[in-house]
C-alpha cells in the first residue's frame, strides 16, 4: 500500500479558529470541574482571553494568503479582516454578556428547562446565580463564525454554519425575564434556521451535481466550462443563497428577526446583530465572488431585487414598531439591505465597502443594545417605546448617547453610519447599479423617521410616572457602550485608516 498523503496544514493560519475551539472545550471542562462560585470569573477571563489570543494571531498572520488543509479553508485578506472584526465585536459582546451588576445573578438563568411560572422558576428568577455555560456556547459560536468566513468549500461552510447556529439557538432561550418570549424566540429561530440549513444543503447537492465537487474553485471552473445543465447551477445557487440570506436577515427570509431579537436576552441579541451579520455577509461575499463570478450578470438582478425588498421591508415596518428591540431588529433588516447593495456591486470597492459597513454597523448596534439593557424597571428591561418618553429629563447622559447612536443609524455626517452608507452607495454606482442607490437613499429617509421619533420621545416628552429608571451600569457594560460610541464617532470623523485596511484586504485568493 502506498503512503498516505495527508494534506499539508498551515497551523499558524488556522490558529485563531483552533484557539477558540480549544478555549470552548476548556470552558466545558471548567463548567464540569470548577466550584460554582469560581465559574463566572474563570469563564469570563477564559472567553475574553481566548478571543484576545485569537485576535493577536489574526494580527500576526495579517500577510498570510494561503489555501490550506486540502483546499478546505482559505485564509486571505477578506477572511483575516472578517475574523478580526468578528473577534473584536465578539470581545465587546462578551463584555455585555458578562455584566452581572444590572440584576442579581445576571441576565441568564441557570435552568432554562424549568416550567415557566412554577415556584422553582420564580425562585430562580429572583436572583439565583446565573448560567455560566453561555461563555463556552458563545465561544463555540465565535469559532464557527471564524471558520464560516474562511471556508473554501461548501461542506466546510455548512459545518461552520451549524457550529455557529446551534449555540445561538440555545443562547436565545436563556433569558431571566420574559421567559416564554425567550423560549418562543429560540424555538422559532431553531425551526426556521433548520429549514434554512436544509435549503443550503440542497443547494450544495445540486451544485455538486453540476460541478462534480463542492470546492469553490471547482465550481468557478465548472461555471466557465461545464457541459451540465444550467438548471442545476441556477437552482443550486438559488438554494444556497436562501440559506445564506436567511442568516443575514434579508427579506423575504427575515421574518424570524424581530421575534428573535425581541425575545433573546439583550446581550445575545447584540451578539447576533453584530457578529452573526459579519459572518453571514463574509460567507455570502466569498461564495458569490469566488465561486459564481462567471454568472454574476445572471444573479445580480435577483440579489439586487432582494436588496431593494429588504431595504423597503426593513424601513417601512420599522416605522410601525412600538418596541425598541423590534425597532432595532427592523433597522438591522434594513441595514442588511444596504450591505447587499455593496455585495452586488461586484467590484473591489464592493467588497471593501461591505467590510467597512459591517465593522461600523457592528460597533454601533452593540452600543445601542448595551444602552437598551440599562433602561429598566422592576420587571427587567423596559423596552416598550412609550416607556422611554421623557428619558432625556431623567438621565441626560444616557439619552444623549442613544441619540448619537440613533443619528448614526440614520446616517448623519460625522458618524460611521454616514461614511459606511456613502462608500457602499459609491461602490454600487461604480458597479453600474444606480437603481439600488436610488432605493437606498429613499429608504434611508423613511427609516430616519422612527429613529428621530425615538429621539423626540426621549427629549421632548414629559416623563411619566412610569418612566423607568436607568440602572447604573457595571464597568463591563460601560466599557462596551463606550467602545461602541467611540468607534462610531472615530469611524465617522477619521474613516481613512479603516478604509485603507479594507481596501488592502479586499482580494480573495483562489
Amino acid at each position, binding site marked *: *500500500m*502506498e*503512503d*498516505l498523503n*495527508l494534506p499539508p496544514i498551515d497551523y499558524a493560519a488556522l490558529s485563531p479558529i483552533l484557539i477558540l475551539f480549544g478555549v470552548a*472545550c476548556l470552558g*466545558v*471542562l471548567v*463548567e*464540569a*470541574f470548577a466550584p460554582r462560585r469560581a465559574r463566572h470569573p474563570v469563564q469570563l477571563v477564559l472567553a475574553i482571553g481566548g478571543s484576545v489570543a485569537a485576535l493577536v494571531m489574526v494580527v500576526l498572520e495579517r500577510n498570510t494568503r494561503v489555501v490550506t488543509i486540502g483546499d478546505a479553508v482559505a485564509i486571505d485578506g477578506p477572511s483575516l479582516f472578517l475574523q478580526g472584526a468578528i473577534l473584536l465585536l465578539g470581545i465587546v459582546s462578551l463584555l455585555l454578556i458578562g455584566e452581572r451588576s444590572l440584576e442579581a445573578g445576571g441576565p441568564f438563568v441557570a435552568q432554562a428547562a424549568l416550567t415557566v411560572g412554577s415556584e422553582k422558576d420564580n425562585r430562580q428568577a429572583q436572583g439565583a446565580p446565573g448560567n455560566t455555560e453561555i461563555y463556552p456556547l458563545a465561544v463555540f459560536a465565535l469559532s464557527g463564525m471564524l471558520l464560516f468566513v474562511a471556508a473554501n468549500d461548501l461542506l466546510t461552510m455548512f459545518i461552520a454554519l451549524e457550529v455557529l447556529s446551534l449555540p445561538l439557538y440555545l443562547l436565545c432561550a436563556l433569558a431571566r425575564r420574559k421567559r416564554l418570549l425567550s423560549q418562543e424566540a429560540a424555538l422559532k429561530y431553531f425551526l426556521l434556521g433548520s429549514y434554512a440549513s436544509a435549503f443550503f444543503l440542497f443547494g450544495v447537492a445540486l451544485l455538486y*451535481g453540476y460541478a462534480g465537487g463542492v470546492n469553490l474553485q471547482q465550481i468557478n471552473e465548472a461555471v*466557465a*466550462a461545464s*457541459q*451540465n*445543465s*444550467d*438548471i*442545476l447551477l*441556477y437552482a443550486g445557487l438559488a438554494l444556497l443563497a436562501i440559506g445564506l440570506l436567511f442568516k443575514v436577515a434579508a427579506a423575504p427570509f427575515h421574518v424570524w428577526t424581530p421575534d428573535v431579537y425581541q425575545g433573546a436576552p439583550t446581550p445575545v441579541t447584540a451578539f447576533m446583530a453584530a457578529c452573526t451579520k459579519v459572518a453571514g455577509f463574509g460567507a455570502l461575499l466569498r461564495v458569490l465572488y469566488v465561486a459564481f463570478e462567471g*454568472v454574476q*450578470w*445572471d444573479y445580480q438582478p435577483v440579489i439586487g431585487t432582494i436588496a431593494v425588498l429588504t431595504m423597503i421591508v426593513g424601513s417601512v415596518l420599522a416605522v410601525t414598531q412600538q418596541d425598541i428591540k423590534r425597532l432595532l431588529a427592523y433597522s438591522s433588516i434594513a441595514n442588511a439591505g444596504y450591505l447587499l447593495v455593496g455585495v452586488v456591486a461586484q467590484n473591489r470597492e464592493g467588497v471593501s465597502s461591505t467590510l467597512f459597513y459591517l465593522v461600523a454597523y457592528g460597533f454601533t448596534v452593540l452600543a445601542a443594545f448595551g444602552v437598551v439593557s440599562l433602561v429598566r424597571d422592576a420587571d427587567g428591561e423596559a423596552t416598550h417605546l412609550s416607556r422611554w418618553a421623557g428619558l432625556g429629563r431623567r438621565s441626560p447622559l444616557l439619552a444623549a448617547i442613544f441619540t448619537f447612536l440613533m443619528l448614526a443609524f440614520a446616517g448623519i455626517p460625522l458618524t460611521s453610519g454616514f461614511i459606511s452608507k456613502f462608500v457602499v452607495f459609491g461602490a454600487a454606482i461604480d458597479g453600474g447599479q444606480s437603481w439600488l442607490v436610488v432605493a437606498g437613499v429613499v429608504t434611508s429617509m423613511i427609516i430616519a423617521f422612527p429613529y428621530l421619533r425615538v429621539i423626540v420621545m426621549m427629549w421632548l416628552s414629559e416623563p411619566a410616572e412610569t418612566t423607568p429608571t436607568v440602572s447604573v451600569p457595571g464597568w463591563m457594560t460601560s466599557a462596551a457602550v463606550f467602545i461602541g460610541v467611540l468607534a462610531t464617532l472615530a469611524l465617522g470623523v477619521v474613516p481613512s485608516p479603516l478604509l485603507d485596511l479594507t481596501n488592502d484586504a479586499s482580494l480573495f485568493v483562489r
Partner: protein
Amino acid sequence: MIGANQRFPPPGDVALVTMSTNLGRMTGYLGSYAVLGLLLLAGALVFVGAFGANRLLRPANPAEPAGKRVAYESGIDPVGGNWAQMQIRYYVYAFLYVLFAVESVFLFPWAVVFADPGYGAAVVAEMGIFVAVLALGIVYAWRKGVLTWS
C-alpha cells in the same frame, strides 16, 4: 448533452433552450432521473388504485363493540390512557447514545485501516483528538449528575 459552446450566447436564453431540449429528449443529467420519476408515479397509481378498489368493493358496516377503541396492549387490559407521558430524563440517554453512535461510526472504518503501513502516529493522534472531544461531552454529563437516576 448540448454543444460545448452553450455558455457563450446570452445566458438566460441558453438556460431556457437547455431546459426544453433536456426535458424533450429525456437525456442529460436530469433526464436520468426520469426513470425514478416514472417509478414514483407508477407507485402512487398502484397505491391509489388498490385503496380505491378496496373502498368500492368492501361492505361499509362498522360495528362499535365495547373496547374497540382502547389501546392494544397484547391482550392485557390497558392501564391508563394511551397518551402516557414519557419520563423526560430519557432524552438525556438518547443524547448520550448519539454521542457513542457517532463515535463508533467513525471508529469502525478507522480500526480497519489504522495499522496499515503508511498510516502513522498522526492518524492515531487524530482519532485520539476526535474521541477526546466526544469524551468531553460525557465528562460534562457525568459531572452534571445526568448519569445518576434520582
